[in-house]
């Protein structure tokens, strides 16, 4: 994969740029969009839930942006090969490149959102500079998880076209099951802690969110589980890709 880093990066940039094609502000929207979102949702929703802006915002968006990355990869992954038919059918580049570019494009977008969130937190003086370092393991875990998920989705989504729709429903459901809009403690109060404790996404997201909330590393146990989840996803994705391989072309 390293050999194709230039290719994947430039193909990813094509996707990122395409998003802002013909806009006057271009990629600046990647920074502005999240700020507008944070301000509006943060202000309104924070009022309803009755939690202070300064703790609620990093909590909500640390989770929301990570989750958005995961769903974009899961959804877009399903059509990664289908959209790249023109390449897949005539160029003998390893197949991993196509889901790879998608994951990378979404990760770039994610980093931009996170950058703008950090700046906003800095402005309202709740930014922990140490989070730039303590969030690193979480970022790596998220990227690895995304790559595994992307590979899996791309293969399965090409062979079973219904899968795309199943995915979108599944992740809609998971959005409410995973503690993103609400703190996990709410589940504890209901005695339903297992709902998030058995949710792999919870651990992955926490590894990103925690550093932004406290500036500290997430607990070792959380990191460990999240890393295991990411590696299992990568293993599963690689396995499916290796198993199906080039014959996925027959389903295009």
């Amino acid at each position, binding site marked *: 994969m390293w050999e*194709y880093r*230039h*290719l994947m990066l*430039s*193909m990813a940039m*094509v996707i990122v740029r*395409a998003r802002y*094609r013909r806009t006057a502000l271009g990629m600046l929207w990647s920074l502005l969009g999240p700020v507008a979102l944070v301000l509006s949702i943060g202000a309104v929703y924070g009022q309803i839930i009755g939690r202070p802006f300064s703790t609620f915002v990093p909590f909500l968006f640390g989770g929301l942006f990570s989750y958005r990355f995961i769903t974009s990869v899961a959804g877009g992954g399903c059509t990664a090969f289908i959209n790249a*038919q*023109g*390449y*897949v*059918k*005539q*160029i*003998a*580049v390893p197949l991993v490149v196509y889901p790879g570019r998608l994951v990378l494009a979404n990760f770039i977008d994610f980093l931009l959102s996170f950058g703008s969130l950090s700046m906003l937190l800095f402005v309202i003086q709740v930014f922990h500079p140490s989070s730039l370092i303590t969030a690193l393991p979480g970022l790596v875990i998220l990227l690895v998880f995304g790559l595994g998920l992307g590979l899996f989705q791309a293969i399965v989504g090409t062979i079973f076209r219904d899968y795309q729709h199943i995915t979108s429903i599944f992740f809609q459901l998971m959005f409410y099951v995973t503690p993103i809009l609400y703190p996990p403690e709410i589940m504890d109060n209901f005695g339903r802690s297992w709902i998030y404790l058995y949710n792999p996404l919870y651990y992955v997201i926490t590894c990103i969110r925690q550093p932004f909330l406290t500036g500290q590393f997430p607990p070792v146990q959380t990191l460990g589980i999240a890393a295991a989840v990411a590696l299992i996803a990568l293993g599963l994705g690689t396995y499916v890709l290796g198993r199906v*391989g*080039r*014959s996925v*072309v*027959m*389903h295009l």
Partner: protein
Amino acid sequence: MNRIIVEDVSLVYKIGLDLSIKDMALDFIRTRKAIREVPTIEALSGVSLSLAEGERLGIIGPNGAGKSTLLKVMAGLLPPTRGRVHSEGRVSCMFELATGFEMNSSGWDNIYLRGLLLGATPAQIKDKEPEIAEFCDLGKFLDLPVRCYSSGMFARLAFAINTAFDPQILLIDEVIAAGDEKFRAKANNRLKELMDRAGMIVLVSHSLGTICDLCSRTLWLDMGKIVMDGDSDAVVAAYKEYCKTGTLPPQMDLESK
């Protein structure tokens, strides 16, 4: 050392039916058979050949003979259902010329991307950029997004890029036909030039003249089987005879299994 060895390769396309559960249920009510058979097409059956350094192979045959499929199998783009393909050397393909571009990116960006896809490094691409631009002769069009290009322009750009990086093995499917007369002559020249540089070329074409002109060896394919494999002039003559009179050459029985 560049070479391709195709060993007893068969390839069966399973035709994916656009069948929903609703259709299946209706089917079941009508015919009482649970599952309809999946139609298959045997595009190649038991094809064997081996290509060595410097060879220029032409592939001819009627539509649906399996020519393009054979090319894709050689390129490693399609996995054979049975048999094996072994290839050494960097393969570059020219199949569907208007696809495999980023429609909203400029010609220049597409040169860069396509170059990377062909396995060139960024530095090599920068090196070759002027040469590619000069060869495809698209001038200011290179600054425009390629969605504005005509099909001939796509063909020129794709051809220029695909031949720029000294491919060791070049697989071409009926592409020189696109582009205008002037470009076609230029493309033919470049192909000859490339072949002189000791690569390996496989060319699928319906233009028997081009085949005789460019290839020393020709493969006649029909119904996924090799009908004849040998010296271009002899194979093309036999093929022409067959198309006119419908009689197969006498040696066909020897060659086909």
